[in-house]
């Protein structure tokens, strides 16, 4: 996984909390910085794709590892 600037552990949280926490964290970051998100909600995979498309933030990577879902989002 590529480098990132901030990390958000949303493990154990269910819809829509991972998205809401990610939005909040991104709001405090500068443009071009990368956020690494860890989630356990399987619904978050499609949700982060949709979140990225609608907010214009780039979803650089999305993968599953050992039951955890990991995302890299670059702030627009």
């Amino acid at each position: 996984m590529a480098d990132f600037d901030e990390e958000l552990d949303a493990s154990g949280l269910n819809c829509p909390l991972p998205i809401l926490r990610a939005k909040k964290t991104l709001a405090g970051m500068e443009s071009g910085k990368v956020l690494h998100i860890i989630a356990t909600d399987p619904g978050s995979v499609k949700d982060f794709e949709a979140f990225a498309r609608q907010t214009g933030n780039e979803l650089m990577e999305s993968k599953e590892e050992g039951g955890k879902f990991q995302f890299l989002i670059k702030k627009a």
Partner: protein
Amino acid sequence: MEEKKLAIIATKGSLDWAYPPFILASTAAALGYETEIFFTFYGLQLLKKNLDLKVTPLGNPGMPMPMGMDKWFPTLLTALPGMEGMMTSMMKKKMASKGVASLEELRELCQEAEVRLIACQMTVDLFDMDSSEFIDGVEYAGAARFFEFAGQSDICLYI
């Protein structure tokens, strides 16, 4: 990107039905929607400072019950005293164990994200409610105020 708008009417005051308006509004706000919820009739319960919402299996054949009770438990007995309290407490425990946010938390997130919360003034008067019972930041208005925003919205939901 042009800002989209979501207008929701919240009419129900039970624990289960309190979730959709707050989940959808907070998510929409996170996606950049300008969002407004108009609370009318029983939906006004969702604006109370002390949320004391309940869920009941009575008249709700779709509600999953513990130990497969929805399969064998006589419908009439769901009206027994204590049933509502028991189901409410079980539902809250289940939600907490699955990482589902509390209503208070979702409502706060909505307010932080500048979702506008509007209480139907007519219902407040009808039920002799007082604005001191409600959380801060609520706007009091009527149907015309709702249509002003709903008329320009991209999505309008009645819950």
